[in-house]
């Protein structure tokens, strides 16, 4: 038996389902900020391996990440192009000097690898947490963090409206095609012009929907500052609270290690190996 989440299916008995949404949100923040603070390629590689290992532990199928593959390649090529053609990172050997004054050394290549591991760690770490959450987790997570319920309401409404808007889009587009409109033919500018004609009825439908939903919400007595009751109990226990504090404390700890003890700074451990 598996549970459907935003991005993938997670086995129902996976331990990740037992983790409180607040812990997941704090892990999401920590992984991203820690990966951002670290420059050492070896440490970043270890972080990457730890995250992959967690996918195994929590039995999260990696096939859910397939759709990120193309984007990851695009970002990695952006990193490679940018550093090859636009950086000056001193090293022992200079492999390429470019006419505009930038050059490529062995340190440039190591830095590219470090940045690539930084990005993939952020991507895998974020997906590990957010990708395994359900809309209910997000809503209750937001309320557990004592953030306004309004925020959870907006996020949920936007997801619900996506489907409605796709239906509106298909309906308006079909109506325009029936009246002789062409969306797949013509030059780039002609296509854009057709999409602009499409935009006006879609905007009207969106405005009408705002008015309708507003009246419905008001009629149901929804108030921004009113006290609410909840169907599910997501109260945070002591174990989860300690875990959250520990995870969040890793952020200042990494920062202190970087600033005062000069670890995690590029090239880090690898400089000893090169010597």
């Amino acid at each position, binding site marked *: 038996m598996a549970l459907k989440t935003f991005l993938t299916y997670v086995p129902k008995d996976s331990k990740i389902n037992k983790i409180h949404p607040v812990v997941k949100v704090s892990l999401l*923040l920590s992984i*991203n*900020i820690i990966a*951002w603070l670290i420059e050492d390629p070896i440490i970043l590689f270890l972080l990457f391996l730890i995250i992959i290992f967690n996918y195994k532990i929590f039995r999260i199928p990696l096939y859910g990440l397939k*759709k*990120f593959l193309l*984007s*990851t390649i*695009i*970002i990695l*090529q*952006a990193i490679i*192009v*940018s550093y090859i*053609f*636009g*950086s000056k990172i001193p090293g022992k050997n200079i492999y390429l000097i470019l006419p*505009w004054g*930038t050059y490529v050394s062995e340190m440039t290549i190591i830095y590219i690898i470090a*940045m690539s591991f*930084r*990005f993939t760690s*952020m*991507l*895998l770490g*974020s997906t590990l947490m*957010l990708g395994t959450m359900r809309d209910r987790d997000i809503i209750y997570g937001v309320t557990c963090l004592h953030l306004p319920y*309004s925020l959870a*309401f*907006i*996020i*949920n*409404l*936007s*997801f*619900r*409206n*996506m489907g*409605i*808007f796709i239906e509106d889009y298909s309906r308006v587009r079909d109506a325009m095609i029936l009246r002789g409109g062409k969306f797949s033919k013509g030059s780039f500018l002609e296509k*854009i012009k057709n*999409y*602009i004609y499409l*935009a*006006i009825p*879609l*905007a*009207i439908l*969106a*405005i009408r*929907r*705002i*008015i309708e*939903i*507003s009246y419905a*919400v*008001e009629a149901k007595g*929804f*108030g*921004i500052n009113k006290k609410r009751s909840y169907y599910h109990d997501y109260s945070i226990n002591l174990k989860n609270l300690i875990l959250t504090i520990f995870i969040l404390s890793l952020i200042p700890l990494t920062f202190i290690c970087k600033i005062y003890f000069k670890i995690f700074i590029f090239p880090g451990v690898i400089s000893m190996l090169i010597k």
Partner: protein
Amino acid sequence: MNSEYKKGITPMHLVISGVTAGVCIVLALFAIILVPVPGLPSASGFWIPAGFYFVFTLWFGIWGALGGHIATFIAMGYFSGYTLHIWLDGGLGDFIAPLVTLIIFRALKADPELKTKKDWITWIVSVPISSLVCGLWVHSVNLAFGIITPPFWWIGVVTYFLGDSAAIFIVGTPLLKTLSKYVKASPVYVEGIFS
């Protein structure tokens, strides 16, 4: 009618953000698929939703910008992952940009119906300013996260400035011109920034 109904922030304002986000998520996904930009993560050469959430911000104040912000983060995250980098980069950038236009419009008391010469000049000047602010923000975030290097920062800012302004003018201007009157007569129009 408007002054009678609009007293502070109401659930209607939350609905505006939710619906704007729902509309813009789909448009953003279309934009990324239809006109992708090689070399730039989750970017589109023609960011269709910008035209929508800029106009929605002029009609609905900060709530339209908030909808654009949520939409960009969700749509870009769908392709590039829901990372801090993506949120700070496109997500927050797309929240700041329409707000700049809104502040300029409200400060100069310009009308989104684009009736007078002053309204037109405000629109024509404020959109490039917003795009430039957003371009500076987006590529400074990319630089801070090590995705690009300083020489590529300028290239990114200039291309962003041109691409985003074009999309807003092409999509946004007809929407403002044809629908502003209708929106202003409806109870959802936001006269100030918040309500």
